[in-house]
């Protein structure tokens, strides 16, 4: 028995321990490998591979069937078969010939070889011979003999060779002819099956069932753990974007988007119906495709969608659920949870358009992002930018009316009720509600609120500056003020008021969109008679800028009579019950409390008491009113005396979309802690986060309630989420050319002044058209069908192509001081209070939009020779185109009613671009579909359209001659003088005065 070793440990135990430890470590290693190897995305890639195989197989089968079903292919196949049989039958006998050919070819080669050797020998012999003659050697004759012998041999050989070649060519020809038909057919078949061949090749690459054995083995091995570093089938796909960086702790690193690792079908239209994550992007025309505006390789995914591009599993990519149900589903399915440290989580589906704004912030409308566009428009209409600074709107005017002369417009009583609850007067006014909100609806707040309104009204009226209203002219005996409401209604319906205003309640289910909002540019005029006096309306219509210098309301140049009629009509609509509502009395006790509150912020308690004691009630009200206006920020939207230099009261929103959710105060409201939820709640009930908080009256939240509908809130939240700070590098932004800038600047002005209320610009707008159709029915006796058919030619013009059409200088003048161009239109271009910046920007806008040169394209002086002038005049005459039937020529009006009249030729020289006139005469319908101007040169038979007896029937010459003649009709000294023409025919340009 061996002696047990003397040790402090038991070797067996230790062995066991080591064994367990090694096995555990090995297990861990395997586990580590396994864990590293088994990635979520591989499962998706495997599933996608199956889908791809299935799709390719289906496509292959379909393609094969399609090809086989074609009659041409079937004919080809049978032809091919016949050709093959023919080939077998006829060309097989050439097998012998082929053998012969190959034998002959061998023979030919040997002969050729021998020929070359003999040729070399001959050359040598020739030298020897020449050498012998030259040196007079004795063996000349021997050398000569040898040379001649060789010469004979080479002649023989050459003959053999040529003959052989001929035989070969002839025999080969027979064989080739026989196979040529078959070859052509085979080529044709290949054309047919090219597509299916491609699919088959693809299938062989991806489908194990189609692969050859080695590839099958390779496919298995390349994805094995550890070996898979080389060239695995399943691998992470990524797009690296150098120009779009990510802010990683004070460092800008290129963005890396690995989304396509799982979203494998995203840019492939074939996966339209596949399930997530393989579905095709819903708009490949605009995104991802190589020829789209945003190719995948340049833009990636997260620049628009947000989220963590480097993430390669569902949770770490920071997906955001679109709804509570989806959130629950994801939690169960993917163990989804919020990743708090990632500041830009993916935009939830309802808000996805927010991503467009960071690059397109200068555009007024972003094509394809309708929700975002609506959100921006609502922000403009509601005037959010007045309290909350938003960089995009930093130069925009205040959205509310000027209150400097308030006392001239309305009464204290009306103002009290209006401030208390604006929507009870006009249900769809843009003025929001400040009082009786969720944090001020307790009894004490209500009573206090009443006195606050008294204070505000007192301040506004005490500060109101005097404003003399013009008297409405008096007529008749005894004298009565002018004004016939019936006529006024017709004026209001026809001159264009309805491009911006409405005078009827909106049904409560009205869905506001960008088009309908055009007609909410100005207030809905319901109840106007209860708000103000007929004199004020008259004065306002005559000169809006006198009352409110910055108003967007233009001057319609109404005559005294017209203005008086319109005013008489407008004040007919009133809301008597609103004015009859009793105003609660002023309660000095509560006024004292309010005043005391404000005073104690600037003085000691005893000073406050002393001050309060010596203040009369009116002063207390006025003092508190001023403080309250500052507190609620009324001055942000309205001009109010005493607040000229105050700053807006709200949080700046320029980068609000980048704010982390934990910087928002959710108070005690149990909602999901995300930005979009907070914004939505805030818009739904702006005071909600005060819920169950104890606050002094002046500490309470004060944002007013706009009573937005749910879909409007979603649109506004989309816009706010788009207001982010991480602007991409200029290299990927829309090209910042001067033209681009001009277009953007012009669009902003067009937006501010609501040009699209009347005009169609860039294919949008013309909001007044339904009202013009109504006018045609109500006042012109047209039936509905007729009115709708005619509406285009009785509405303000579509401005498509305006830059090509009119001269920049003329446009500048016209926008400054419009004159009548289309006498048949009842709607009139109003006079806007544009400043020089506006005018320049608009002129540049129209030029840039039509890619016209700016400022002035070369003005071509049309030169009419004597003959051309005479022919132009002839075409113009009654016997030909009879242009004077409709067009005004200076002071010479056409016959009939203005309904049929057309623009004055005297304007043409200064107004129109000569090249455009030619285009217009050629095909007016193409430039302005629906125009009253008929087409004289039918484009369907242009060459036969003009009269044969003018300018040899050459239509293009006729158009030019007519254009040149028309230009001579302008009352302009620089108008081209026609070359010598008979004195009697000399044009008599009519004296025009516009």
């Amino acid at each position: 028995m061996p002696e047990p070793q003397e040790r402090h440990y038991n070797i067996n135990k230790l062995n066991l321990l080591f064994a367990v430890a090694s096995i555990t470590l090995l297990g861990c290693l395997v586990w580590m490998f396994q864990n590293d190897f088994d990635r979520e995305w591989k499962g998706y890639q495997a599933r996608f591979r199956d889908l791809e195989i299935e799709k390719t197989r289906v496509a292959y089968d379909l393609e094969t069937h399609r090809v086989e079903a074609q009659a041409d292919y079937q004919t080809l196949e049978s032809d091919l078969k016949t050709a093959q049989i023919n080939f077998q039958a006829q060309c097989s006998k050439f097998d012998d010939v082929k053998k012969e050919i190959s034998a002959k070819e061998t023979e030919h080669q040997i002969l050729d070889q021998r020929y070359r050797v003999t040729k070399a020998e001959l050359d040598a012999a020739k030298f020897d011979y020449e050498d012998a003659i030259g040196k007079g050697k004795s063996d000349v004759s021997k050398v000569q003999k040898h040379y001649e012998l060789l010469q004979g041999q080479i002649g023989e050989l050459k003959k053999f060779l040529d003959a052989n070649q001929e035989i070969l060519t002839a025999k080969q020809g027979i064989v080739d002819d026989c196979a040529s038909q078959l070859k052509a057919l085979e080529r044709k078949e290949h054309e047919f099956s090219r597509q299916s061949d491609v699919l088959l090749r693809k299938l062989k690459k991806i489908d194990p069932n189609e692969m050859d054995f080695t590839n099958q083995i390779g496919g298995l091995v390349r994805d094995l753990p550890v070996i898979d570093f080389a060239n695995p089938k399943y691998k992470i796909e990524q797009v690296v974007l150098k120009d779009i960086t990510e802010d990683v702790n004070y460092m800008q690193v290129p963005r890396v988007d690995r989304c396509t690792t799982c979203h494998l079908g995203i840019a492939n239209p074939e996966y339209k119906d596949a399930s997530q994550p393989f579905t095709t992007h819903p708009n490949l025309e605009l995104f991802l495709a190589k020829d789209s505006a945003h190719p995948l390789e340049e833009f990636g995914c997260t620049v628009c969608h947000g989220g963590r591009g480097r993430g390669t599993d569902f949770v770490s990519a920071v997906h955001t659920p679109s709804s509570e149900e989806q959130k629950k589903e994801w939690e169960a399915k993917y163990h989804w949870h919020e990743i708090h440290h990632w500041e830009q989580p993916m935009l939830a589906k309802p808000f996805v358009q927010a991503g467009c704004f960071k690059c397109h912030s200068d555009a007024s409308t972003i094509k394809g992002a309708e929700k975002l566009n609506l959100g921006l428009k609502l922000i403009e209409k509601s005037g959010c930018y007045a309290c909350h600074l938003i960089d995009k709107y930093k130069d925009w005017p205040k959205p509310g009316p000027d209150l400097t002369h308030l006392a001239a417009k309305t009464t204290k009583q009306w103002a009290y009720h209006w401030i208390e609850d604006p929507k009870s007067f006009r249900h769809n006014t843009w003025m929001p509600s400040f009082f009786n909100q969720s944090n001020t609806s307790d009894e004490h707040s209500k009573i206090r609120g009443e006195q606050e309104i008294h204070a505000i009204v007192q301040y506004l009226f005490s500060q109101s500056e005097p404003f003399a209203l013009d008297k409405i002219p008096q007529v008749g005996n005894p004298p009565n003020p002018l004004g016939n409401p019936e006529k006024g209604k017709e004026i209001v319906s026809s001159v264009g008021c309805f491009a911006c205003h409405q005078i009827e309640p909106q049904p409560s289910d009205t869905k506001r969109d960008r088009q309908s909002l055009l007609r909410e540019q100005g207030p809905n005029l319901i109840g106007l008679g209860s708000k103000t006096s007929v004199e004020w309306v008259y004065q306002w219509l005559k000169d809006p800028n006198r009352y409110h210098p910055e108003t967007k309301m233009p001057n319609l140049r109404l005559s005294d009579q017209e203005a008086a009629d319109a005013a008489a009509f407008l004040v007919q609509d009133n809301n008597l019950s609103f004015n009859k509502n009793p105003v609660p009395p002023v309660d000095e006790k509560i006024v004292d409390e309010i005043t005391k509150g404000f005073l104690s912020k600037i003085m000691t308690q005893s000073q406050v008491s002393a001050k309060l004691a010596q203040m009369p009630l009116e002063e207390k009200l006025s003092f508190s009113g001023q403080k309250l206006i500052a507190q609620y920020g009324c001055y942000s939207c309205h001009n109010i005396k005493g607040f000229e230099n105050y700053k807006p009261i709200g949080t700046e929103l320029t980068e609000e979309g980048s704010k982390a959710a934990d910087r928002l105060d959710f108070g005690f409201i149990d909602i999901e802690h995300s930005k979009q939820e907070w914004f939505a709640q805030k818009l739904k009930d702006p005071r909600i986060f005060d819920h169950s908080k104890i606050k002094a009256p002046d500490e309470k939240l004060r944002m007013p309630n706009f009573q937005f509908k749910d879909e409007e809130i979603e649109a506004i939240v989309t816009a706010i989420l788009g207001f982010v700070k991480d602007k991409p590098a200029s290299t990927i932004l829309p090209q910042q050319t001067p033209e681009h800038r001009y277009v953007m600047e012009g669009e902003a002005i067009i937006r501010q002044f609501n040009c699209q209320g009347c005009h169609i610009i860039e294919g949008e707008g013309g909001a007044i058209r339904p009202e013009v159709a109504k006018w045609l029915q109500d006042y012109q006796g047209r039936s509905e069908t007729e009115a709708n058919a005619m509406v285009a030619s009785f509405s303000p013009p579509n401005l498509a192509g305006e830059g090509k059409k009119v001269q920049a200088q003329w446009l500048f003048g016209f926008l400054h001081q419009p004159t009548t161009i289309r006498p048949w239109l009842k709607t009139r271009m109003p006079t806007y209070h544009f400043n020089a910046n506006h005018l320049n920007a608009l002129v540049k806008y129209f030029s840039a939009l039509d890619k016209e040169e700016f400022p002035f394209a070369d003005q071509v002086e049309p030169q009419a020779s004597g003959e051309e002038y005479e022919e132009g005049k002839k075409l113009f005459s009654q016997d030909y185109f009879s242009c004077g039937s409709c067009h005004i020529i200076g002071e010479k009006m056409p016959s009939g009613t203005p309904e049929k009249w057309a623009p004055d030729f005297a304007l043409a020289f200064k107004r129109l671009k000569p090249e455009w006139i030619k285009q217009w005469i050629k095909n007016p319908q193409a430039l302005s579909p629906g125009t009253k101007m008929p087409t004289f040169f039918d484009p369907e038979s242009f060459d036969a359209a003009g009269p044969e007896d003018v300018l040899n029937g050459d239509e293009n010459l006729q158009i030019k001659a007519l254009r040149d003649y028309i230009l001579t009709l302008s009352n302009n000294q620089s108008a081209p003088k026609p070359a010598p023409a008979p004195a009697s025919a000399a044009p008599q340009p009519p004296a025009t005065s516009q």
Partner: protein
Amino acid sequence: MKKFNTSTCSLIISVILLGVPAYAATIKGVVSYEGEVPNLKPIDMGADAICLSKHGSAVMPQILVLDENKKMANVLVQIVSGLPKQEYPVPTEPVVLTQEGCQYHPHVVGVQVGQTVKVLNPDGTLHNVHALCKVNAEFNLAMPKFRTEMTKVFDKVETMFPIKCDVHPWMAGWVAVLAHPYFNVSQTNGAFEIANVPAGTYELEAWHEKLGTQKASVTVTADETKEVNFTFSRP
């Protein structure tokens, strides 16, 4: 072009061959007006001396044309439903629309899809033919004095769109482009007649430019003549 012609021809031939059976029923009737006759103002043609010279007496607008028995002209009656779905041969004869005395004659006209419309201008003044259609391509072609005739073809079904002359604003005509030949416009005595109708049950619609539409149901057997009358009144 040649291909188009051959295919059209073969289509027409096949339709003729297939469509022979029992085409003999006739639907006819009279359109009357009930109620007070509105006092229409005569048209002021002073805007164009040529127009004025074409008329000896005052010209009444064509929006409501009644005879002494208050029978209405210019009402288009057509079968709107019940017809088998098939292609009908397009008449080779063109429909003629004349601008005479600065008015359209006829005032209401029905054509078949693909049928030629010949527009004439014997007035010797500038007219323009402005077809305010929405489904077919809108056109506005001038017919100056030297162009007395032109032709147009409408290639889509579109009922009742106006044709206007922008030079003479009072001028208005109405056109219906239909897929089948079963329509008729009432004469000055109010009578209309739709012939060669296959046996079946149909819905008829009578249309007037100001007084709207009326519908009636009718069943005809082969070789039968059924009478359907319409009465319009002001709403």
